[in-house]
């Protein structure tokens, strides 16, 4: 019983971290129709960047925001100078961002080396709560809170005027531009927002899973599975998918560590057979 509760707790906190990451990926696709496989590298660089920044800033929250902004700038540059030219061709986007993933992965390896690194847990959140026979670290509670908060904020954002403008721009770009909206600025900001989330996730995930080479692909892959299960571009799908993948990953890892990836992909395969466009996706 205790085992189940502990894994449930760990699974939900892991799911929230995955959601934070996946939300950026799926929003960029949902709102701009851009597939950005560099998203995993954003996470990786966010985390490494966080390690550098925290030695000066000494505060995880400040570091997370600075890390997010740094990655947002990187994303903005990529969108502004490159990706916006290939808005109509998914294949080109995928290949291009795939190339960037390789480039960034090797760049990170050459700068920070192959040793795993971690970001220290902030003092304020270092303690744990005892519940029955369980010791639950406060930091993971904070992760769950941040994930829920982000979900709520994003939902509000999509309903807000800004969100409506972005969606209008996707539906009919010329018309929206015609009524005086600066579409290209809007797109760049949206892209930056998605990248910000990845960078942020990288920093606040640091104290839990650390940073190491290969993490970029690992996390990108889980989030690909999440969006395939939940449906591309759907925020609700990303949330439900994250919970599903986070929980299954945690439980299977605790029970049969060899087959954790296998189990996740099995769920993905089943979803594809039953609903090829995902639970909340539209054709």
């Amino acid at each position, binding site marked *: 019983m205790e085992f189940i509760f502990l894994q449930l707790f760990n699974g939900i906190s892991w799911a929230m971290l995955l959601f934070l990451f996946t939300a950026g990926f799926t929003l960029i696709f949902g709102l701009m129709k851009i597939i950005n496989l560099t998203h995993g590298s954003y996470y990786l660089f966010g985390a490494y960047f966080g390690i550098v920044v925290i030695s000066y800033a000494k505060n995880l929250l400040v570091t997370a925001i600075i890390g997010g902004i740094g990655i947002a700038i990187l994303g903005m540059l990529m969108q502004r100078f490159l990706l916006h030219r290939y808005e109509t061709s998914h294949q*080109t986007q995928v290949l291009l961002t795939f190339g960037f993933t390789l*480039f*960034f992965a*090797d760049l990170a390896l050459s700068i920070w080396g192959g040793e795993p690194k971690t970001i220290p847990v902030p003092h304020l959140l270092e303690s744990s709560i005892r519940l029955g026979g369980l010791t639950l670290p406060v930091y993971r509670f904070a992760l769950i809170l941040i994930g829920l908060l982000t979900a709520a904020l994003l939902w509000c954002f999509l309903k807000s005027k800004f969100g409506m403008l972005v969606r209008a721009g996707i539906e009919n770009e010329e018309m929206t531009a015609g009524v005086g909206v600066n579409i290209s600025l809007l797109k760049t900001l949206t892209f930056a927002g998605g990248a910000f989330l990845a960078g942020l996730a990288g920093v606040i995930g640091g104290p839990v899973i650390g940073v190491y080479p290969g993490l970029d692909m690992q996390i990108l892959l889980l989030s690909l599975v999440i969006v395939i299960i939940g449906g591309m571009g759907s925020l609700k799908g990303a949330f439900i998918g994250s919970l599903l993948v986070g929980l299954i990953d945690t439980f299977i890892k605790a029970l049969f560590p*060899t087959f954790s990836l296998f189990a996740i992909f099995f769920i993905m395969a089943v979803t594809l057979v039953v609903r090829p466009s995902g639970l909340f996706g539209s054709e």
Partner: protein
Amino acid sequence: MKTFLKTILLFALLGVLPLLLPSYFTGILIRIMILIIFAMSLDLLMGYTGLTPLGHAAFFGISGYTMALLSLKIFHGSMPFIGFAAGIVAAILCAAILGLIVVRTKGVYFMMVTLALGQMFWGLAVKWQQLTGGTDGLAGISRPSITFASLNFSKEINFFYFVLVLFGLSYFIMSLLLGSPFGHTLIGIRENEKKMEILGFNTWLHKYIAYIIAGTFAGLAGMLDVYYYQFVSPEILDIGNSIGALIAVILGGSGRLFGSVIGAALYVCLEQFISAYTQRWVMVVGLLFILVVIFAPLGLSPLLSRLWISMRKPQKNRVGQ
């Protein structure tokens, strides 16, 4: 007929090359041929059917591992051709099962699903240590030999001809296939799937069969790769391996068989050349990939053929002016 003769001539030339060049180049030629088979199998999907798999290394690795495990753990080096056949069958079976899931999807979904599935096999090879040896891999896989004909392929030069024959066969089968009504239907699906459906073609079945064929040839390439290095590790299931084939196809130009030949040759030569100078080969590959996608999305072979034409007909151009 003329192109057929030309192709035969090219193969004959390739067969003579290792006799003329220092033995160092034999290995490079073998690696080029293996990558060409792999790239052609990818291009069948990418260039001809309009489906771009990002995890094509899955088949490469599955048949490689199947063959390696059989020859190491069950046959202990004897009866190599059973392992060889089993490797091919494993690739076919795997493609037939995965194809059922994957071919239902289109476009972006296809790319993402294949990437995810490809990574699954990589993860399995890394984590299932009792069977695969984990990241350490499995060593000591011997190259095949035909005892009754006293042909032993363990010597590199002999192995070269083994690969050459299989490469020639693959190229021949591929070009037959692509020239057949089946190949034309695939191109039709690439151009306009709805239209082909309305014309009465079973597009799903065509794509499914193309997927299985692609998996089979990728498996063949993977097995040859394991034979060549006499070693197998999760690296052959890695994304890096899938990307190698992708670059070879894009570099040469997708949708033309000879593009894979040019692309693969260029890629292996570049790797050989650049790794001699820097440890950062992966970074260079990433950059190369980005540059080719931006500046030569159709690959280098259209550029080369334009150059070839302008070199051959300079007189006519002048008359035209």
